[in-house]
């Protein structure tokens, strides 16, 4: 019983945390001081070996384009950027319904077709309709790529999260999905740093 109570409370806490928005900005924090950032190593997304390194490199490039220097982890800056990959799916498969019109002969199992009728059915008997058209919906596979990241900027000295962002983007190729995802995630930071 006690174990169940603890599990329930843990689940409630986790759910609460998941739905809570982490503060995007820390009021009163001087963002103009941010000139150098240490980017912590990014862990691979499950079943996507090497994804961490790909995201880390792209993230560092984007930050440098914003005019921010990247400090080595051995000689870290006071500002630490944490990144976790929330999606790295290079084969995101969806199925799109398409109506297909079939022409020609079709067979109907009378026993199945008439099972709701009061008439006596003939089990196993099949009706064939030549030249009939039947519309059915089939699903076709469609594959694209999705990349999602979660970012948190920490002021190590003050021990607080000063900025966070979360963004996912889809595209037809991985480079585009990755670049747009990182660009979209960093856009709010870009605005703050410009002020």
């Amino acid at each position: 019983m006690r174990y169940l109570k603890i599990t329930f409370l843990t689940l409630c806490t986790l759910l609460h945390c998941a739905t809570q928005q982490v503060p995007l900005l820390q009021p009163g924090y001087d963002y103009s001081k941010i000139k150098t950032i240490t980017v912590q190593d990014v862990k691979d997304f499950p079943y996507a070996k090497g994804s961490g390194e790909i995201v880390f490199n792209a993230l560092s490039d984007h930050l440098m384009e914003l005019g921010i220097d990247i400090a080595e982890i051995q000689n870290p800056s006071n500002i630490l950027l944490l990144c976790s990959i929330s999606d790295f799916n290079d084969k995101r498969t969806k199925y799109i319904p398409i109506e297909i019109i079939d022409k020609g002969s079709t067979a109907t199992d009378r026993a199945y077709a008439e099972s709701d009728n009061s008439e006596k059915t003939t089990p196993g008997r099949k009706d064939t309709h030549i030249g009939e058209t039947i519309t059915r919906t089939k699903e076709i596979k469609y594959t694209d790529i999705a990349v999602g990241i979660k970012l948190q900027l920490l002021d190590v000295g003050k021990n607080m999260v000063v900025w966070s962002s979360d963004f996912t983007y889809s595209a037809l190729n991985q480079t585009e999905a990755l670049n747009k995802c990182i660009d979209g995630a960093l856009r709010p930071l870009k605005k703050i740093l410009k002020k």
Partner: protein
Amino acid sequence: MKSIALIVITAFGICFGQSELGQAIELVNSNRYEEAENLVDTYLLDHNDDHRANFIKALILIHKKHYNNATKFIEKAIASKNDKAEYYQLAGQLYENLKNTNSAIQAWEKCHAHAKDTKLFVEAKIHLNYLKKK
């Protein structure tokens, strides 16, 4: 050998009342894009404006990374069926890939307007927000 396989598949399909497009979909779903393309190409000879055939052809061309060419087919699909959100989604992604931002925005707007499932609705909104703030 491939053409023999294609003939066998087509004959089998016809015998069991399955249309060429139905077979093409099954071939795409089992990653047999070449065979699917042959079937769709044949079908398009007589049904040039069929939106489903044009959409399947666009999907096949995207798989082959022939993005420019795929755009022509998705545009044809949209021309004959202008209320299917998934067609606009594909068009939006193609235009973005080809750096045609204005057309991409138009396509995502239509996708957003016609989306029937929440996921696609949200995805279209994300793309619109991103592209409009560029």
